[in-house]
């Protein structure tokens, strides 16, 4: 079914603009038109469909599921819910406080918050359509593993020592009683009607598409530039053997760049096509997505510098290790 987007790009670039299919500009433009149109169409369908499915899931429910679970199950569940629960990143702080005050260990809460930006439904479906099942599964597995291991390490180091006063208060509340405060907004008894689902899915589609479309354009634009203008084989010749230093370098390069998972996947596709090894590519992309300064400045409200630096270092180390391992296995 994807042939339609190739035909559209053929028609626009070769027929309408009359460019020769030998020129670099035409090739880059063709790639850009084909990928953006394909991604936009997929996004709208997918966000709607998934919004429909998860209309009933919210952070309040997740907190109910996570409270009182044994730790190892908790990390895995926390990370899994982080991947699927819809929540605005501006809610990170209330979620952190809410989980903590319900007696959920910091590590489980962090497994939730760390996995959340790395894996989301849009990213997964894009990955699947652009790069296939194998890489998608690998991406999900590594993303979740980073959340789970990161959370476990934070608990081992007793991260609760380095909370800001307000978060420490929430933590103390959680230790006193594991009773989850109930209020009307917890909405456990609320039943979800078809109309509700449609409403939710519609507003999700509008909201998410409105937010990510520009990232897709930037991402695909960069991908197209790589595709058309970087001499074929140049990246492969220089990074193709998975030289050990290329992985930490990729992670460092990803820090100042900030994109969400949706924008970075088209870039990932291009890097892989250009022959950059999988481990290096994933390390770069995950670092771009997860190690973002705006997010960390926000977390400063609940964490002391020491804990913040620890989380940051933990992320960078795990991206690097993951990159090395994947390059070795390849």
């Amino acid at each position: 079914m994807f042939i339609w987007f190739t035909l559209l790009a053929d028609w626009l670039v070769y027929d309408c603009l009359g460019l020769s299919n030998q020129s670099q500009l035409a090739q880059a433009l063709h790639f850009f038109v084909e990928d953006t149109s394909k991604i936009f169409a997929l996004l709208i369908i997918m966000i709607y469909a998934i919004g429909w499915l998860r209309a009933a899931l919210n952070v309040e429910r997740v907190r109910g599921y996570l409270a009182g679970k044994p730790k190892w199950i908790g990390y895995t569940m926390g990370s899994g819910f982080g991947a699927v629960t819809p929540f605005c990143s501006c809610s990170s702080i209330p979620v952190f406080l809410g989980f903590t005050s319900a007696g959920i260990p910091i590590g489980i809460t962090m497994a939730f918050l760390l996995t959340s930006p790395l894996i989301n439904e849009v990213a997964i479906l894009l990955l699947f359509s652009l790069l296939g099942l194998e890489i998608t599964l690998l991406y999900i597995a590594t993303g979740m593993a980073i959340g789970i291991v990161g959370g476990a390490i934070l608990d081992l180091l007793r991260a609760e020592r380095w909370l800001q006063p307000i978060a420490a208060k929430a933590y103390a509340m959680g230790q006193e009683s594991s009773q989850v405060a109930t209020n009307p907004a917890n909405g456990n008894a609320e039943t979800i009607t078809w109309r509700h689902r449609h409403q939710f899915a519609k507003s999700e589609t509008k909201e998410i598409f409105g937010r990510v479309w520009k990232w897709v354009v930037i991402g695909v634009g960069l991908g197209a530039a790589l595709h058309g203008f970087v001499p074929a084989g140049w990246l492969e010749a220089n990074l193709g053997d998975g030289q050990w230093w290329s992985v930490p370098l990729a992670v460092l390069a990803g820090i100042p760049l900030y994109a969400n998972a949706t924008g970075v996947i088209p870039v990932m596709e291009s890097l892989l096509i250009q022959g950059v090894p999988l481990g290096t590519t994933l390390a770069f992309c995950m670092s771009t997505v997860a190690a973002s300064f705006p997010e960390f400045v926000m977390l400063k409200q609940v964490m002391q510098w020491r804990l913040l630096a620890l989380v940051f270092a933990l992320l960078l180390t795990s991206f690097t290790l993951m990159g090395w391992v994947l390059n070795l296995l390849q």
Partner: protein
Amino acid sequence: MNIEILGSGCKKCTNLAEEVSQVAQQMDSEFNLDKVTDMAKILEYGVMSTPAIVINGAVITAGSVPSTKEIESLLQAHC
């Protein structure tokens, strides 16, 4: 009627506050609207997903930006 909008001050929360204040003005009842960004206060209400609407101390919605129509009926039900 005492309305509070809870939120960290992101775009969604500001939009919601604006919307609610417009609806309340049209309803022509006396009201007082506060934007609450203090996390300690938000925690006290037990709210995790922002933005949230609080009327006279009770949490009415959390984690969503209701449509103008919904806001209208919510306000009418609670004033």
